[in-house]
């Protein structure tokens, strides 16, 4: 079942995306951010934290970067200063970090050692960290040798079933995640606590108190990964784990996810800007590093275009989603990602009472499949038009399940009948999975049996959306990405280049800027 779409238009969209990303790419390569510096430190083994007076843990990586920023020397790269101190003091990385955290050492005051020696020390640490990440990728591959993989890159299997847990307590989340896996879930996302994306540090240790979600921490990642590994062995099926590489700590979450073998990450080039009011430059620079990390560890990214349809009308604005997918694809390619790891996002968010709305949803979903044939598309359920009527919601979600399986989406986020009320209860998830199991089983090969009526309503709608996307991309090419975002080209949200949170954490690289982790990533990725 394929739509007849204009191939020239599709090619034009891709070439415009390339032009747009080229300009942004220049800006990216000239800058780094506090979050990228902290990620480098984390990969180099700085994973400790110290207890502050208020009882909260503050990461060592932050203590180092804060100090360098304060002393105005961060532009050379945090790794440089760390290695310099290690050499002079003959101390391990963690020992140096602890001294900084206790305010017993000022890195910028340590006499500069020979550049070659400093770099050698740093590169050795970076290499060890990157090797660990590569090991984790191999571990996943090994597990997939003896466990069933619900994902089929040629989409002959139904989409992967993705559910969220969000109790706020990682230990409670484990109980619910395992229950969900038994009921058929293939992917577990631990939703983050409200506003974690605005914290400029990653909390430390296991956590039991969150709002509308559970804090993303390295320890929480580890706890959930271990539980899902156990459950995978028990079920004979590999259960994937997801978190959110977005917000002010986007690159750090990506690094921690890579280290702890998460399988997917929400990782969008524009989401933070549009939906969390994070500075444009900060997000664009951070997403590049984050995606290199995903590329290395073979983490699937999930992009966030589905969200556009919660603030902009979904019938009228399908083209914004498609245009953004072309950009997200391009930015991911720039970070050396393969298409088969790009879970480009979209959603079934049209007003359910729109005449023939289901046809239009099929048109958009199939169009997305045809335009991005290798991408494990991430398809989001109805959310905006979900209301307190859980019975209607359950039916609405069932139609979503059908559209998803017949158009061969890659990653299927299960809709919950209780979407408008609360983060899902165990029973809500069970109901949703049962309905999905039924429809994915009963209509597994439906897509292969159907053909669209040439020039029918479905085909025409998809052609219209493609055409409008091309027009939007042409506009973006003309005015540039920054102004496009300012002028509400996406999601009806306007943001400015220097506005938003986290702008202070962006800095121009010094002529002698040094980041051995980024260099090592580059080497590994180009070598492939």
């Amino acid at each position, binding site marked *: 079942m394929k739509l007849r779409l204009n191939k020239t238009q599709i090619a034009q969209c891709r070439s415009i995306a390339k032009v747009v990303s080229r300009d942004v790419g220049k800006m990216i390569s000239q800058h780094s951010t506090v979050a990228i510096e902290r990620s480098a430190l984390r990969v180099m083994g700085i994973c400790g934290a110290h207890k502050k007076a208020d009882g909260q843990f503050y990461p060592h990586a932050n203590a180092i970067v804060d100090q360098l920023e304060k002393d105005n020397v961060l532009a050379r790269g945090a790794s440089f200063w760390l290695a310099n101190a290690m050499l002079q003091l003959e101390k391990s990385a963690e020992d140096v970090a602890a001294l900084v955290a206790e305010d017993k050492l000022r890195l910028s005051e340590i006499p500069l050692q020979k550049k070659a020696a400093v770099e050698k020390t740093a590169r050795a640490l970076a290499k060890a960290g990157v090797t660990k990440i590569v090991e984790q990728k191999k571990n996943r591959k090994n597990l997939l040798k003896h466990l069933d993989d619900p994902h089929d890159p040629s989409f002959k299997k139904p989409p992967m079933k993705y559910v969220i847990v969000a109790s706020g307590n990682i230990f409670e989340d484990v109980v619910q995640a395992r229950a969900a896996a038994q009921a058929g879930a293939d992917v577990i996302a631990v939703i983050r606590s409200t506003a974690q994306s605005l914290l400029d540090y990653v909390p430390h240790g296991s956590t039991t108190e969150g709002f509308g979600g559970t804090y993303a921490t390295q320890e929480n990642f580890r706890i959930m990964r271990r539980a899902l590994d156990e459950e995978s062995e028990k079920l004979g099926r590999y259960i994937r784990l997801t978190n959110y590489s977005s917000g002010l700590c986007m690159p750090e979450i990506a690094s921690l996810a890579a280290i702890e073998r998460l399988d997917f990450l929400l990782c969008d080039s524009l989401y933070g800007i549009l939906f969390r009011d994070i500075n444009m430059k900060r997000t664009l620079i951070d997403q590049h590093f984050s995606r290199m990390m995903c590329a290395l560890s073979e983490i699937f990214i999930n992009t966030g275009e589905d969200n556009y349809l919660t603030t902009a009308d979904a019938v009228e604005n399908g083209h914004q989603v498609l245009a953004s997918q072309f950009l997200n694809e391009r930015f991911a390619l720039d970070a050396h990602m393969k298409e088969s790891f790009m879970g480009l996002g979209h959603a079934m968010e049209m007003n359910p009472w729109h005449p023939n709305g289901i046809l239009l949803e099929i048109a958009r979903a199939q169009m997305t499949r045809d335009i991005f044939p290798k991408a494990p598309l991430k398809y989001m359920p109805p959310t905006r038009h979900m209301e307190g009527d859980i019975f209607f919601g359950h039916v609405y979600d069932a139609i979503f399940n059908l559209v998803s399986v017949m158009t061969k989406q890659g990653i299927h986020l299960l809709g919950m009948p209780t979407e408008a009320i609360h983060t899902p209860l*165990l029973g809500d998830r069970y109901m949703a999975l049962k309905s999905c199991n039924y429809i994915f089983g009963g209509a597994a090969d439906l897509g292969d049996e159907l053909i669209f009526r040439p020039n029918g309503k479905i085909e025409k709608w998809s052609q219209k959306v493609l055409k409008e996307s091309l027009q939007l991309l042409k506009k973006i090419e003309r005015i540039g990405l920054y102004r496009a975002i300012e002028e509400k080209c996406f999601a009806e949200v306007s943001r400015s280049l220097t506005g938003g949170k986290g702008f202070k954490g962006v800095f121009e690289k010094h002529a002698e800027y040094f980041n051995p982790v980024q260099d090592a990533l580059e080497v590994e990725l180009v070598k492939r």
Partner: protein
Amino acid sequence: MSKDSFLPYGAPNHSSVKPVDLKNLKPYGDAMNDGRMQVNFTLPVEPSPEAQEAAAELMRKMGFVDVKIVDMQKASEGFSFFVGYGAINHSVDFTKITVLKVETVFKGFDEINELIRTKIKRKIRIIGATTGFDAHTVGLDAMFNMKGYKGDYGLERYPMIEAKNMGAQVPNIELLEAAIKMNADAIMVSQVVTEKDCHINNLKDLMVLADKHGWRDRFIFISGGPRLSHPLSVECGLDAGFGTGTLPSHVASYVVDELIRRLERKK
């Protein structure tokens, strides 16, 4: 038949038809006052005859009679999923129920502008934001944006209203300061996330701040969101609250009425 007891809509006048009894109101399942309802929940035990009986017992404790557990499934290891039906024992006296409601008569766009022009005799100023860490803007925008919501124009469209929408994730103090700067008549706060009652704490915190600065009586304080209601909002110290399905003209009607009331009180 009286005001409190009457035949249901469309019922033929026949001795077998029971009247609606407002003094003893009960759910209507298949017949008047049969009280039948469905319940769904999960228990943290495996399905078993004992689990089924436990589920039925819980329903009896809730006040159900004639309890039937019609479905018991294994949701996952150690969890069972139930659907139950029962007839509820309880009834309520509908005539005694009172609900705190926003004091206003809903008016249309033209009428509201006209009232402002003739009674208040100047443009009124309204400022709004989603406060705290809450990032949801769709409800707030529905109130403010020109195009409005479900065919009802947003406040920015009203010629007699100067409306300022500060967006989401706005700290309470910033909202208050902006309101002072604008010399606003009303402050509108949207709260969508309610986990661990953060919406309630956030609203209370706003009012504590307003009190502290002596700004409590300077503004009309209004909250809104899917889990908000007028009584809850009043309980948090605000003047009014709006829940799901609110239209911009509802809020505008209230603000105008309240401003006129306040003007008259001053006289």
